[in-house]
């Protein structure tokens, strides 16, 4: 027990709650911060001390709260400041331990092109690529990279100046228009060619380093099911992957960890093609949203491990790669409408029922009574299931989803259930384009039998507040109790 340790989580929602759980188990004091709009959020009620800040992105505001509170460690969670090296430096200057990698390794791995060059320099496979300025022989470079390929603006982002080129004859025209678009958008017509992988899989390796050049892997995760380039469904380990490919992924990942003397938890992302060729994409220098599936199949508590490494920086918190057992699947429950382009939904959580039973874990950031706005990411919770094998895990996920109910805000629960019913998903045949191809027309409309039951119940007055509040007065009391307390503290 390190009772002098006091940990601030510079984050919100489920990940803050997850870290607070480990702190409570380890006897570590906890500090939460909350930004406007999050006064009633679940994570705020799960810490021993709370402070209001103006934004989760304001490093200065968080550091000054940490100093005031006498915090010894900061856990950044994911997103927000978790991959900003300036925040790590600010923690260092304030004498507060940042739980994660050093600012230097963040800088080394942060830029996509720089990270690619680093990976290539130590023999980690990357997609063939080339940079061409106007006037140079683009055809020769394109032939070297290979068709089909993707033209991207070197200075760009957001899809501007991006073209898919199938064959050589299309190249010159596509390059000209892409270059013109890039000049208009960024003032720089330099193009970047990259080999296009058709229907790729997204597979990533969880690693943990001691900061001195030693690291272990905690197996891989398959995260190919994505909407709007955001993961929806993640699993460990990856189905339908050859042992040889798996070894190659682990070796490549550990080469990078050793090269940059990576410290703490990180994830190395790869694209995997149909022939199981794999290519380094980028490294995420933080804990991932989907870390629970790795925790489950390896039996390693990653958050606890992160804190232990920070408490004892001179010894490796984990010395061997663990075995992986069984199959774990996580789905992200978002407040969104999948039938309208995943449009975010707002509301207030009126009723909540989480699934329980064998092999089910819920990491949640919401409670009954909490308002859901659009200030923050629309992820409400993560539902994680595990079973001895993948087929059992998929059916367990389906069961768990049918036992889940979140009333008061629209969610993607039905969409997730449809995923668990999809034939390809059940077989483990997944790629990053699957949701776009098979679920673009998804509609969540109840059938007549369901409607008539609902209508019947409605006519009998079963959903009226008065009847419910008589039957569950405790729930109503809890509902009306939350807000005033926090409003008083904030002002």
């Amino acid at each position, binding site marked *: 027990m390190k009772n002098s340790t006091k940990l601030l989580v510079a984050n919100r929602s489920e990940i803050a709650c997850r870290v607070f759980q480990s702190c409570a188990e380890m006897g570590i004091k906890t500090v939460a911060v909350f930004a406007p709009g999050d006064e009633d959020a679940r994570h705020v009620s799960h810490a021993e001390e709370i402070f209001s800040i103006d934004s989760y992105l304001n490093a200065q505001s968080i550091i000054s709260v940490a100093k005031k509170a006498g915090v010894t460690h900061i856990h950044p969670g994911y997103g927000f400041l978790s991959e900003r090296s300036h925040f790590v430096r600010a923690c260092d200057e304030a004498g507060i331990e940042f739980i994660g990698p050093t600012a230097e390794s963040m800088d080394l791995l942060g830029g996509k092109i720089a990270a690619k060059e680093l990976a290539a320099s130590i023999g980690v496979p990357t997609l063939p690529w080339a940079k061409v300025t106007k006037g140079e022989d683009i055809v020769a470079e394109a032939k070297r990279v290979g068709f089909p390929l993707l033209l991207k603006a070197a200075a760009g982002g957001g899809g501007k100046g991006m073209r898919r080129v199938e064959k050589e004859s299309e190249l010159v025209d596509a390059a000209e228009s892409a270059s013109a678009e890039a000049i208009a958008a960024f003032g720089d017509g330099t193009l970047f060619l990259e080999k296009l992988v058709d229907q790729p899989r997204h597979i990533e390796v969880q690693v943990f380093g001691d900061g001195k050049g030693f690291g272990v892997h905690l197996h891989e995760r398959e995260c190919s099911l994505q909407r*709007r380039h955001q993961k929806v469904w993640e699993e460990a380990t990856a189905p339908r992957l050859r042992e040889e490919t798996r070894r190659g992924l682990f070796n490549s990942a550990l080469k990078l960890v050793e090269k940059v003397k990576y410290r703490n938890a990180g994830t190395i992302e790869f694209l995997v093609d149909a022939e199981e060729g794999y290519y380094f994409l980028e490294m995420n220098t933080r804990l991932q949203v989907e870390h629970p599936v790795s925790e489950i199949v390896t039996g390693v508590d990653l958050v606890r491990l992160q804190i232990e490494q920070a408490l004892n920086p001179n010894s490796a918190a984990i010395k061997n790669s663990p075995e992986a057992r069984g199959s774990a699947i996580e789905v992200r429950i978002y407040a969104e*409408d999948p*039938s*309208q*382009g*995943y*449009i*975010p*939904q*707002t*509301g*207030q959580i*009126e*009723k909540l*029922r989480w699934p329980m039973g064998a092999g089910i874990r819920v990491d949640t950031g919401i409670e009954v009574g909490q308002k859901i706005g*659009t200030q923050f990411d629309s992820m409400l919770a993560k539902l994680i299931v595990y079973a001895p094998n993948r087929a059992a895990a998929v059916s367990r996920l389906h069961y768990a*989803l*049918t*036992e*889940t*109910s*979140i*009333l*008061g*805000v*629209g*969610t993607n*629960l*039905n969409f997730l*259930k449809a995923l668990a019913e999809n034939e390809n998903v059940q077989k483990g045949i997944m790629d990053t384009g699957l949701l776009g191809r098979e679920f673009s027309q998804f*509609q*969540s*409309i*109840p*059938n*007549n*039998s*369901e*409607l*008539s*039951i*609902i*209508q*019947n*119940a*409605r*006519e*009998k007055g*079963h*959903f*009226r*507040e008065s*009847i*419910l509040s008589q*039957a*569950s007065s405790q*729930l109503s009391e809890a509902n009306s109790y939350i807000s005033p307390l926090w409003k008083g503290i904030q002002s």
Partner: protein
Amino acid sequence: MSNFFKICGKKVELNKSTDLNKKTGEWIFAPGGFWVLREPLENGGYKQTRIFGKEVRNQLSVSILGRSDFKNSGSTWVGDIQKKTFGKAQGSSSGDDSSLTAQFPGKVRKVLVADGQAVKEGEKLVLVEAMKMEFTIAAPKDGQVKKVCVKEGDQLSPGVQLVEME
């Protein structure tokens, strides 16, 4: 009484042949906060359906739990099933039905239709940008655009009407 629901902005008709009174089962409020419909079976047992539901701010939020023969088992929808569609004042809700309002703060990126234009169900009416993403507002049914209430670049707050349809 009109038997239709508004789900995800779409009007869903209850099948005319569905006789609500045929559901002779007994409703029980069960511990855990759900209503259970118990319908007697010929063999002396009961068929059970569990419903989780609540009426909030004139809207109904419902979920049917744990039945694989229901497409929407474990589902949730909110703001879709409007009280007035059940109410006694029938027929007065048609204007509201075809209205299209902003559900979250954002900005009008592009208006794709004009006043008086005939549109088909699903046809794109307005593109809205919010949270760095672009969303399409589509026609909920075949009809005619009565009035476009916004223009490109307009800031939207929740509840602002985008298009009136008839």
